[in-house]
């Protein structure tokens, strides 16, 4: 079965795959974000500068419209001044004829003013106010220059009194009270009385080229929307955006809107409002063009403003064209949104792709991991099948080679181990057989030696004979003891040791028989056993194999006698602990160095020194005891104060309470 791959670590990602996907994502996110930022910035700038270019272009077109209107006036005047009838009626001072002819021209060409002066500059007739004549116009720059045979045309400011002379309606047409305008420059005036006029003046010459007089005329721009609407039509072709004209044009008299198609909030032409202060300063004060976004009346426009100059070159007003900024900002925003949209789609796509790509990367690794687990579980026949030419492929190949090598080694080891186990069993059987066979004669020897020693078979003649028998007896005991340990070991090692647990009184079944058996040995070394906590000890019952538990006590007490101080005491004790029963055998004597406390339980471990050699230990007693205790589910350990005492403790688990 598959198991969930668990990789410990501080990363919140539990799999290689999620790490890979996250890395992919991070890269795409970083790239996408930065390119989106740069892209939108670039696109934004391009759009704005494109709009400004268009502004410049529009401005040029606007000037063309404006100039065309001026030129038309000039051309009309020029042609009219050359007409024979005009010249003749002027020469003949037929004022009424002249006036009628000119009136027809004025109406035909839509001029507001058409006036004739004599060669001195005195007005002979006005087509609009025929009876206001005789005033001197030679001070007017246009007329003055026409008298000098120049043909001039320009935009001029016409004062109220002059407007009044040309026609009282013109005074009303020009008159404007300022509408309060946010962002406009503060001015002391509150109204405008003069007008701004497209004006031309031409000399009237006779056949001999003498100046007979001048003809001047023009169109008042105030409240005349012909030019601005024509600009709008030509330049912007009447485009609208969200109900608003995208293109607007305005003619300013100084800073005052006198002709415009910019609408105010109520949808009317926003005349009588004034230009923003920034534009005022740049265009009117400094005479420079302005091309930038500007807040015009209600909306933001990409606006172009250029100064209008009169014949003398003085700035008298501004021509403005503007494109609504909103279509451009909307365009820019749309581009930005689509950038983000594309980036997001890309992200989703990358996520999707990464999911599959990483799967192709991690799948072989997952397979390797599973294979490793299978092998860790001991199955060496498993091989991974990964056909790729990359590092993972190499890894898989090496992995399979390693597995095969391991399998071969393991198989060899298995064969060798089986042989070894067999050898060991043979060895143990042999040891068991030999020791068992040795035991019989030893038992006979021991029995006779005891009887010899206690002289129940007749007295020994000399103390030296008695000494000899005593030493023989001691050596036979030692031999028997060694044989017993080997017999125990044989049983433990050959796996024949069955633990037949029964509920027994530990004291009566395990300790007491040993104490009785060891009585002689104790007496021989003048030692005494004290049972501590005896009453509880005698009552203590536990689940244990009585035969095996006796071996434990026998080995521990045997050791205590062997290594304890001659004439010393041995304490056997019992304590009830939570969940287990604890027993101990403590003796006075040399004790055990602290670094040997665990090693004494190792097989064939013996303490160094003369004492050990003379005692003839096998190094098996404690090992056997440990094996037995652990087979019972208990623990065994040693404590000691060197030079004073040693204590061996072991536990067996408490039996489950009977129902």
């Amino acid at each position, binding site marked *: 079965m598959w198991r969930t791959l668990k990789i410990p670590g501080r990363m919140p990602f539990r799999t290689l795959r999620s790490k890979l996907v996250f890395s992919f994502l991070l890269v795409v996110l970083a790239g996408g974000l930065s390119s989106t930022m740069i892209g939108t910035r670039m696109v934004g700038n391009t759009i704005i500068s494109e709009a400004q270019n268009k502004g410049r272009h529009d401005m040029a077109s606007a000037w063309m419209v404006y100039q065309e209107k001026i030129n038309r006036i000039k051309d009309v005047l020029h042609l009219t001044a050359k007409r024979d009838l005009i010249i003749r009626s002027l020469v003949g001072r037929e004022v009424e004829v002249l006036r009628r002819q000119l009136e027809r021209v004025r109406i035909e060409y839509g001029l507001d003013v058409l006036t004739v002066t004599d060669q001195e500059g005195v007005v002979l007739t006005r087509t609009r106010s025929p009876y206001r004549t005789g005033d001197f116009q030679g001070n007017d720059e246009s007329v003055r220059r026409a008298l000098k045979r120049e043909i001039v045309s320009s935009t001029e400011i016409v004062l109220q009194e002059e407007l009044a002379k040309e026609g009282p309606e013109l005074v009303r047409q020009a008159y404007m009270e300022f509408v309060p305008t946010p962002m406009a420059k503060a001015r002391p005036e509150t109204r405008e009385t003069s007008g701004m006029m497209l004006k031309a003046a031409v000399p009237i010459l006779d056949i001999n080229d003498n100046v007979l007089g001048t003809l001047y005329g023009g169109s008042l721009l105030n409240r005349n929307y012909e030019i601005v609407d024509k600009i709008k039509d030509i330049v912007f072709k009447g485009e609208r955006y969200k109900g608003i004209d995208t293109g607007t044009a305005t003619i300013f008299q100084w800073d005052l809107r006198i002709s415009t198609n910019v609408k105010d909030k109520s949808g009317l032409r926003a005349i009588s409002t004034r230009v923003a202060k920034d534009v005022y300063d740049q265009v009117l004060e400094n005479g420079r063009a302005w091309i930038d976004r500007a807040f015009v009346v209600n909306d933001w426009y990409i606006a172009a403003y250029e100064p209008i100059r009169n014949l003398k070159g003085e700035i008298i007003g501004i021509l403005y064209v503007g494109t609504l900024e909103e279509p451009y900002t909307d365009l820019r925003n749309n581009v930005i949104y689509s950038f983000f949209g594309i980036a997001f789609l890309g992200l989703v796509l990358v996520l999707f792709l990464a999911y599959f790509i990483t799967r192709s990367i991690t799948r072989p690794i997952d397979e390797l991991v599973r294979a490793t687990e299978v092998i860790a579980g001991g199955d060496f026949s498993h091989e991974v099948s990964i056909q790729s030419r990359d590092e993972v492929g190499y890894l898989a190949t090496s992995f399979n080679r390693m597995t095969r090598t391991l399998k071969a080694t393991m198989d060899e080891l298995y064969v060798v181990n089986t042989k070894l186990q067999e050898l060991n069993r043979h060895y143990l059987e042999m040891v068991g057989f030999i020791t068992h066979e040795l035991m019989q004669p030893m038992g006979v020897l021991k029995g006779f030696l*005891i009887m010899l020693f206690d002289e*129940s078979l007749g007295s020994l003649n000399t103390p030296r004979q008695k000494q000899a028998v005593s030493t023989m007896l001691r050596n036979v005991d030692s031999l*028997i003891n060694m044989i017993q340990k080997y017999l125990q070991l044989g049983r433990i090692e050959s796996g024949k040791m069955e633990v037949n647990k029964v509920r027994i009184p530990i004291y009566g079944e395990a300790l007491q*028989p040993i104490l009785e058996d060891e009585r002689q040995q104790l007496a021989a070394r003048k030692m005494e056993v004290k049972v501590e906590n005896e009453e509880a000890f005698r009552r203590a019952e536990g689940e244990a194999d009585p*035969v095996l538990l006796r071996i434990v006590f026998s080995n521990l007490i045997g050791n205590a006698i062997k290594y304890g101080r001659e004439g010393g005491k041995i304490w056997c004790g019992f304590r009830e602990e939570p969940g287990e029963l604890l027993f101990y055998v403590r003796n006075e004597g040399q004790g055990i160095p602290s670094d040997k406390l665990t090693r004494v339980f190792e097989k064939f471990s013996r303490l160094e020194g003369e004492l050990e050699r003379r005692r003839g230990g096998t190094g098996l007693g404690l090992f056997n005891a440990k094996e037995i205790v652990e087979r019972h589910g208990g623990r065994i350990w040693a404590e000691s104060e060197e030079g004073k005492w040693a204590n061996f403790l072991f536990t067996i688990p408490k039996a489950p309470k009977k129902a």
Partner: protein
Amino acid sequence: MERPKILVIDDEPDFVEMIRMALEREFEVLVAYDGKEGVARARSDKPEAIVLDIMMPEKDGFTACQELKSNSTTSSIPILILTGVGEYFGRTKYAKVRGMEIEADDFMAKPVDPNELVRRVAALLKKD
């Protein structure tokens, strides 16, 4: 006074000789060298106590003990069993060893202290 008869059943002549020397100080010693012979001798000679070895050819100690204890003529004779090396049996009348239950009056593990054996046999006789 006639000395009590003790039947020793063991297949090892040297061992038998050794314990015979010890027991003869107090008792009259009869010997059988295998289980089959031992059971027959117990029936015919009616000893006061039996010292029985476990490891024997023909009929081992367990079987012999069972036969003696289940037969009415011999069931009252106290039996002391000598066990193999390291095979301690309980002090109790019943001991469970290797899954077998054996009913005997006393147990001693080899190698035995002859003096201790004499003491134990004497104790068995006194119990009667």
